[in-house]
C-alpha cells in the first residue's frame, strides 16, 4: 500500500483539478457574486498546488526527519519488514464491512457478525479454539448491548435475537 509520492501527488492534483472544474460549473445564486462554487474552487486550486509540489518532492526532507525520529524511538525488532502479502490483508476489514452492508438485512445481525468475527480473528492468526467460541459469543454480547442498553434494534434476518 506504500505508493510513491508521484502517484499520490498526481492523484491529489487530479482530484483538485476535478473539484475546481466541477465547482466552476455550479449554478450561481441570482443577485450574489459569491455562491456555492467559490469554496470548491478555492479548495480545488489548493489541492492542485499541493499535488504538484508533492510530485516535485518539496517537503520530503521533513518526512525523513520525522521517520528517523520515530525509528530511534521504537524497538528494533518492531521495524523489520513483514512479508508483502500481509499488506494486502489490510483490505480484509473494509471488505468485511461491505459484506455486512450487503448481507446483514437478509442474514440478520447474529450470523453476519459471527462470520465477520470468525474470518477476522483467523486472519489475525487466532487458533480455531479461540476464533470459533469468539464468533459465537461476541455477536450475542454486542447485540445485547445495543438492544437492551441503547435500544437500537439490529437486523433480525434468518436468526433473530431470541429475547
Amino acid at each position: 500500500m506504500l505508493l510513491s509520492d508521484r502517484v499520490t501527488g498526481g492523484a491529489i492534483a487530479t482530484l483538485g483539478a476535478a473539484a475546481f472544474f466541477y465547482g466552476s460549473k455550479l449554478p450561481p445564486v441570482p443577485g450574489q457574486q459569491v455562491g456555492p462554487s467559490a469554496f470548491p474552487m478555492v479548495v480545488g486550486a489548493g489541492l492542485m498546488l499541493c499535488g504538484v509540489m508533492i510530485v516535485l518532492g518539496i517537503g520530503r526532507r521533513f518526512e525523513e526527519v520525522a521517520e528517523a525520529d520515530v525509528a530511534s524511538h521504537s524497538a528494533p525488532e518492531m521495524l523489520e519488514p513483514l512479508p508483502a502479502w500481509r499488506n494486502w490483508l489490510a483490505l480484509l476489514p473494509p471488505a468485511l464491512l461491505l459484506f455486512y452492508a450487503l448481507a446483514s438485512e437478509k442474514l440478520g445481525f447474529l450470523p453476519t457478525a459471527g462470520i465477520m468475527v470468525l474470518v477476522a480473528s483467523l486472519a489475525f492468526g487466532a487458533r480455531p479454539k479461540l476464533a470459533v467460541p469468539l464468533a459465537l459469543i461476541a455477536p450475542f454480547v454486542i447485540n445485547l448491548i445495543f438492544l437492551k442498553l441503547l435500544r437500537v434494534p439490529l437486523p433480525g434476518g434468518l436468526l433473530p435475537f431470541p429475547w
Partner: protein
Amino acid sequence: MDTVIQAFGLVFAPDVLIAIFASAVYGLLVGSLPGLSATMATALLVPVTFYLSPIAAVATIITASAMAIFSGDIPGCLLRIPGTPASAAYTDEAYAMTRKGEAETALGICLWFSALGGIAGTLSLMLIAPLLAEMALSFSTYENFWLAMLGLMCSTLVARSSPIKAIAAMLLGLLITCIGIDNPGGVPRFTLGSTDLLGGIEVIPALVGVFALAEVMRSLTERDPPKLENRRLGSILKGQWALTKKYPKQQARGNLIGIIIGVLPGAGADMAAWVSYAMAKRFSKTPEKFGTGHPEGLIEAGASNNASLASGWVPALLFGIPGDTITAIAIGVLYMKGLNPGPTLFTSQASSMYALYIIFIIGNIIMIPLGIIMIRLASKVVGAPRSAVMPVIMIFCAVGAFATAGNNLFAVYCVAIFGLIGFVMEKNGYPVAAMVLGIVMGTMVEQSFVTSLIKSDGSILPFFSRPVSSVLAAMTFGALLWPVFVWATRKLMAQRPATA
C-alpha cells in the same frame, strides 16, 4: 451560585455517574491495549453517546479520553510500546526505568502527574474560557474565518510529516464537506446523482472509519506485540509525594506548556508531551541522565499531556474549533446534543458548563484509584490477544456507525471507505488528523468565508483591515510560512561547518 448548585445536580444524577464510571473503566482498558489510541477509544464511544442525555454524553467523552491518555503509558512503561501517541515522547525513558527495576515508580509518576496535570488543565479551562468568551462575543465572520484557518494551519504544523502533505490532507477534508446540499446556494454538489450523498458525509462514520477501522487494518499488517512478563509491582504511589516536592518547577512548567499547547487550536496532547520532554531536557541540570530512566522528563511530559487535554476544550467550546482529534470528536457530540459551541454557551447554558468542569475534576480524581487497579491488572489486560480484540472492534465500527445514522446502511459503506482512505494516507505520510479537522470544520469555514465575501461585495480587503482579523491573518500566514523558515535555518546550519 444557583447555577453551580444546578450543575452539581446535573452531574450527580445516577445516569451521569454510571456513565462516568463505565467510561472510565472503558478508557483505561482500551488505552492500555498497545495499538489502540485514545482517539480510537473516543471515536468508538460516540455511537453510544448518541443515546445518552447531553451531560452524560459529554461526561463519557471527557472521562474516557483522560483515562485512555493515562493508561497509554502502561504498555509504554512495561513493553516499550506506547499505548497512545501522546505517550510516545517518553516511552524510552519509562521503559528504561522499568529495566532498572523501577516500574512501579515510573507507572506511579505517569498516574500521579497525569491526575495533577488534568486538574491544572481544568482550572485553566475554568479561568480562560469565560474570559475569552467575552472577547469572542465581538467577533464577526471575518474573525471566525481566520480563527478556523489558524486552527487548520496549526493542525498541519504539528503533524510531524511533510507540511505540504499535511496541507493536502487538510484540504481533502474541506473538499469532503463540500459534498451534499448543505451549502450557501443549497445546490447539490459532488453528489454524482446519489441520494445518499445529498445529505453529505456525516462526521461520525468518517471518524470511526479513519480512527478505528484504519487501526484494525494497520494492526493486520504489523506483528504481534511482545509478551508481557508477569512481574510483581510494589507500592505505586510510594515516593510520589517526595518527587512532587523535589521537582515542582518541572511539574509547573509541564502543566503550563500543556495548557498553552492545548489552547492552541489544532495542537494536542502528543505535541504537548514531545515539547515538554524536550523542554525538560533542555533546562535540566543533569541532561546526560535523560534516556537512562530519569524521572525528570517523565514528570514534565506526563504533567503536560493531561493538562493539554482539558485546555483543548477552550477553543472547542468557544469557537467550535478542535484543540486536537479528541476534541474534534467532542465537538461532533456537542452539536449532536444541542450544546452548539459558541461564546453564548457560557451565558445560556452556564450550568452545563459548570457541570463540564465538575466532570473533569471528578474524572481526574477517580483516575488515581482506578488507575492503581488498572496497573495491578495490567499483566492480564495488556496481553489480551489482538485476534480477539480487533474483530470485536471491527463489529463495533459497523454497528455503531449504522446506529448513529438512523439505521442507514450507507453509514457502513462510509466507514469502510474512510477506513481505506485513512489507511492509505497514513502509510504514505499524509496525516489523518489534519483531514479530520478539515471535515469537522469545513462547513463552518465555508459559511464564514462566503458570508464574509457577500458582506464585503466580493472584496477581500475587510479580511485584513479589521484589527483582530489582521492579527489572526498574520498568525495564519506565519503558520503557513513556518516550515519554510525551519527549512532555511536547517540549510544554513548545515552550510556553516562547511564554510568555516
